[in-house]
């Protein structure tokens, strides 16, 4: 499983997205599912930069992927602040525009677009594993 290391800055997002596109193509996902995986990885990496590192250029993001028989497994590792998973809330759509909060949307997207999301913390690393199976729609 090759590992690619990127500086923890927002400019890296487009480069990481290119790798995600290669992985989803190789795995054979349709356009919608591939877009979902790209979104989930983008949101996860943005969260690493913003929340784990608390800003740009303070650490690295390690990206790797593996294609198993029926699953695309993407792993992201960082050495930022330990991630504490919060309750994932569905955006409230039945409230007026002016009261709509847009926080927590990234995490919600990650969980909606992927089939499995696992968090772990080992040897100073946050380890996020994102898994997509074939033929599943977003939830």
């Amino acid at each position: 499983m090759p590992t690619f290391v990127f500086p923890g800055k927002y400019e890296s997002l487009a480069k990481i997205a290119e790798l995600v596109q290669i992985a989803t193509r190789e795995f054979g996902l349709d356009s919608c599912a591939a877009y979902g995986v790209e979104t989930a990885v983008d949101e996860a990496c943005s969260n690493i930069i913003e929340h784990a590192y608390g800003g740009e250029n303070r650490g690295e993001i390690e990206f790797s992927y593996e294609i198993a028989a029926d699953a695309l497994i993407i792993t992201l590792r960082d050495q930022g602040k330990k991630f504490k998973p919060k309750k994932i809330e569905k955006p409230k759509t039945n409230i007026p525009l002016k009261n709509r909060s847009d926080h927590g949307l990234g995490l919600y997207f990650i969980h909606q677009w992927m089939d499995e999301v696992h968090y772990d913390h080992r040897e100073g690393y946050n380890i996020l594993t994102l898994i997509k199976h074939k033929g599943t729609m977003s939830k």
Partner: protein
Amino acid sequence: MEINHTEFKRCDVVKVSGRVDSATAPRLAEKLNEIMDAGRFRIVLDLQDLDFISSAGLRVLIGAQKTCKRYNRGEVVLANVQPNILSALDLAGFTPFFKIFDETVSAVGNF
């Protein structure tokens, strides 16, 4: 990301192409703020060539919509929204907040 802005008499058309993510969303916000700061609140966002939008980009859209709709002085409408982008808007629960047009010309005609 590329932004092309055309000012019409009754509205502004902003064509956004490429990727809107955490790296590029601030530039889109800057452009929309520039238009709104000029007192223009009727904005068509042409998303024909938008390949990707993250939550950072969606936050810019919803922020601009809040500003434009204040005092009923205008609104942001969307044109040529591609299926993947529409899925993202839908998942965020943002589709009810925007009029969506199949073509830019009908979006402009809305104003």
